[in-house]
């Protein structure tokens, strides 16, 4: 739950708040759960809703364009990047883009489902996946002639 919130919000403190609020809700409503089905699904859904609520609250500050759905089919540099590099690159994406990317690739939601969750259109979800992927590619393996901030920081 914490990892999910952290990936969506990109901020440890906010993720902790989400964990706190989600667990509080779970304890408050535990009596309504009849135990006939997997509990973790419900738990995860509550955490996701809490994180998305915070994301939507901060959504106005972010761009919500539905363009640039550019898809690069070339093998990604994440294949040979270590976890730390990928995490740092992920953290540099805008929160909404990172969330859509995470929901699509890791949580397994479809574009229509993501559109419903974030309150945007299906094409928005698609463009965010394409844009986020391209941006990750550029951050991890910058085009020649530019200096990556990650490399610059490491040096």
């Amino acid at each position, binding site marked *: 739950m*914490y*990892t999910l919130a*952290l990936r969506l919000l990109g901020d*440890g403190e906010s*993720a*902790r708040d989400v*964990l*706190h609020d989600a*667990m*509080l*809700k779970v*304890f*408050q*409503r535990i009596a*309504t*759960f*009849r135990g*006939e*089905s*997997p*509990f973790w*699904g*419900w738990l995860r*859904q*509550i955490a996701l*809703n*809490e994180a*998305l*609520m915070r994301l*939507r*609250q901060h*959504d106005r500050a972010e761009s919500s364009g539905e363009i640039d759905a550019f898809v690069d*089919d*070339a*093998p*990604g540099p*994440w*294949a040979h*990047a270590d*976890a730390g590099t*990928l*995490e740092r690159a*992920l953290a540099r994406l805008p929160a909404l883009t990172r969330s859509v*990317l*995470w929901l*699509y*690739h*890791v*949580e*397994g*939601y*479809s574009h229509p*489902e993501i*559109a*419903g969750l974030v*309150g*945007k*259109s299906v094409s928005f979800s698609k463009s965010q996946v394409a844009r986020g*992927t391209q941006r*990750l590619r550029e951050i991890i393996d910058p085009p020649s002639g530019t200096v990556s901030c990650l490399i610059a920081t490491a040096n």
Partner: protein
Amino acid sequence: MSDRNRQLNRAPWDLAEALRALPLQAPDHSAWPELAEKLSLESGVQDHESKRSARIRRFVVPAALAAALACVFLVAYHARDSRPPVAGAATATVSPLAASSSLNSAKVDNVHNAPSRAEQLAALQQRSQALESWLQETGSAAMPLQGQDLAAATEIENLIGLVDVELSAPRELPDANLWQRRVALLEDLSALRYSYQLAAGGRVTAASMTN
């Protein structure tokens, strides 16, 4: 998660695999102490309220009942003393036989007119689907909810999620009560979205609200 396993989702560059392989994260300090404190505070409030309601049940309710009985007795006693005799007073009452027969016929009508369990369930599922479609249609075009409305909507969505989890459990017969609950929650969510859009000056089609 319908197209999770489709080839389309399996990106040729395998970003999904790389993201899934990232290690799990944990907060730098445990969230449990704050949570436990909050929960104990809440349970303290609940204890206080339950003690208060127990006290009410034990003393206040019997006292109120006794006072009400005394009042009824006094009023009846005074009314009996002051009431002028009425010649046709008995005509206002309904004979037990007539009352009984009318009650029985009403019961029979109800039996004939009551929808079957399957019909009720189908109606609930249809209503649920209509509400969900309306929410999806308006959701993408409508203004995003803010503040308390957003919190309330999230609350309702969580409860709907809980009902969905319960509904997904294998059982012999579908649970009409759960479907009833789902429809009620969807109606709450629709009402919230509708009132928010009205307040914000947005245009919402109310046609499906009345379906």
